[in-house]
């Protein structure tokens, strides 16, 4: 990874459709060679943002730089970008080779240069045997590879992916995910990748931008986002099974902060607050895999509970309990799967927890 300059820079970008604000004063800087994933639920504006970067949507306010050049008013073809679409958007009546070369031929690139670029793209993507076929004779994975090839032959600095794997089945998706990762390592291009799939985001990204309501909620490395989500939305959006949230209150007891709900008192001595908190309502978040199960004492916090439901998932098992009268799940390895109604003990270190303000949802 070479981070020697900005590749894409977005300044104060806003987009309104009539009275509806789709993107709100958004800022984003993508480093050279970086893999950025825009992640969020549908309607969060992530695809819209990508289309703005590509120049396919006219923005209402702000500026876009690519490679240091102000491209705010440039045509898509002049921005130095290549784009891969969810529906592949291959030209159906052209062979794969024609699909790859059409844009270049229109731009008047010399024939031998076109041939060279196609050969290179075909080799990288291993689609040489498919060059003379039409898209209708290709599988979904092959089509997506051709679509990537079409961006590749343009010899561009920035790749834009708009949910490229969403139309594929789970197995293919996993395969292509790895291929895209390898491709990025090989090309070292800047890539901006839109998805609603958190696994894609976690596995591919150098940094993830989690979006909601046209605003970037958090922009960080995947592990940071996973372990230290800035708000309850980010915490809940990432992770499967989802993070446990318990509603309760913060209390200061003899100089130490505690999270209290019903008869449960969780000491927060090891928790790193963002800033000194104030007593009051709060939400306690804990990922199911960060909870120890029947592993004896020695944890800053431990409790016993009755198993309500057991969900075996193959590699491991999800155990549903009640903590402080609220649903609480624990992830357990398969060998240790308990039975229904067993009384079990759990323990965790609040260091791994996330505390949120009950009103604003922001991290405390």
């Amino acid at each position, binding site marked *: 990874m070479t981070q020697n300059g900005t590749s894409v820079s977005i300044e104060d970008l806003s987009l309104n459709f009539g009275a509806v604000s789709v993107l709100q004063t958004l800022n984003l800087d993508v480093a050279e060679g970086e893999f950025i994933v825009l992640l969020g639920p549908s309607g969060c504006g992530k695809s819209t943002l990508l*289309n703005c970067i*590509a*120049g*396919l949507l006219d923005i209402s306010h702000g500026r876009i730089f690519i490679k240091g050049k102000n491209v705010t008013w440039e*045509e*898509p*073809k*002049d921005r130095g*970008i*290549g*784009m891969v*679409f*969810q*529906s*592949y*958007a*291959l*030209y*159906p*009546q*052209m062979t794969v080779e024609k699909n790859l070369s*059409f*844009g270049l031929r*229109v*731009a008047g690139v010399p024939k031998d240069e076109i041939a060279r670029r196609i050969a290179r793209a075909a080799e990288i993507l291993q689609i040489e045997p498919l060059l003379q076929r039409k898209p209708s004779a290709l599988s979904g994975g092959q089509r997506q590879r051709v679509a990537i090839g*079409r*961006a590749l032959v*343009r010899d561009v600095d920035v790749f834009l992916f*708009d949910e490229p794997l969403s139309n594929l089945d789970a197995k293919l998706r996993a395969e292509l995910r790895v291929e895209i990762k390898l491709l990025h390592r090989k090309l070292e291009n800047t890539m901006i990748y839109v998805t609603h799939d958190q696994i894609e985001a976690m596995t591919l990204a150098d940094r993830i931008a989690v979006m909601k309501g046209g605003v970037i909620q958090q922009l960080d490395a995947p592990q940071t986002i996973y372990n230290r989500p800035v708000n309850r939305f980010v915490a809940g959006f990432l992770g499967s099974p989802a993070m446990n949230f318990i509603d309760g209150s913060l209390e200061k007891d003899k100089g130490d902060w505690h999270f209290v709900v019903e008869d449960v008192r969780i000491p927060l001595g090891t928790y790193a607050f963002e800033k000194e908190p104030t007593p009051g309502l709060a939400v306690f978040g804990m990922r199911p895999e960060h909870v120890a199960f029947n592993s004896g004492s020695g944890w800053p916090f431990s409790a016993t509970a009755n198993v309500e439901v057991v969900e075996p998932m193959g590699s491991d098992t999800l155990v549903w309990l009640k903590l402080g009268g609220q649903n609480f799940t624990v992830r357990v390895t398969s060998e240790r799967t308990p039975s229904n109604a067993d009384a079990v003990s759990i323990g965790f270190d609040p260091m791994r927890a996330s505390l949120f303000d009950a009103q604003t949802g922001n991290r405390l």
Partner: protein
Amino acid sequence: MILVAVGVFVIGIGFSVLWSFTSSKLFPTYDFVGLAQYRRLWADSRWLVSVNNIWFFGLMSITCNMVFGYLLAVFMDQRIRQEDLFRSIFLYPFAMSLIVTGLVWQWVLDPNLGLQAALRNLGWSSFSFAPLVDAETAIYALVVAGIWQGSGVTMAILLAGLRGIDEDIWKAAKVDGIPTWRTHLSIVAPMMKGAFATAFVLQCVSVVRVYDLVIAMTGGGPGIATSMPAVYVIQLITVRQNVGQGMAAATMMLLPVLVVLAFSGILLWRRNREVGV
């Protein structure tokens, strides 16, 4: 019910073909004369003119209709203001009878009343535009009226086709730097094969059946200049009381329809097979 309908079509066609081999005059007889009626038919200058006319009319009106309809559809697809208003305007003639269409254009093109008179009155006294009274040009007038009535439908079908195209295709072409007209020509139009075929078949059917328009606009004239097979058949049955030859002509009308249907049937079958593989 369905049996009755199918029966009428099948039996009707059967009898038409059967009687085309007889010497039937006012009423059908079963006096078989072989191909004599067909020989007489193809020796009849009125029939030959009709056949020529239908080819010319068909070619002209389908081509113009498609081009004009596609242009309208493309322009309508540019996020224009008042799209619904334009759509209503382009389509309303289709709601009208071909008789009405024929009469309307008969007046517009009437030399003493219509465009010619109006423009001469406005001071352009040398203006001459009277296609309907000239045997050479009357058929163009029919084509214009046909376009007026039918291109809105072509537009509607093709517009639906255009709207059905994946938006990502347009985006991909834009990123590829392909000019809009080129995208239309090289990518989008070929993707609309289905819509074009639908519009084309619809046009063909209405061309073969063109009867009302001719009757109302020219009555087949001047002379026999705009006679069409559909008009010819009815005339033979009613006015000239020559059922045998009329049926022979009707059978000839059926032939191209059969060819087109067989052709599209084969196409459909091949497409199904391709999908199967």
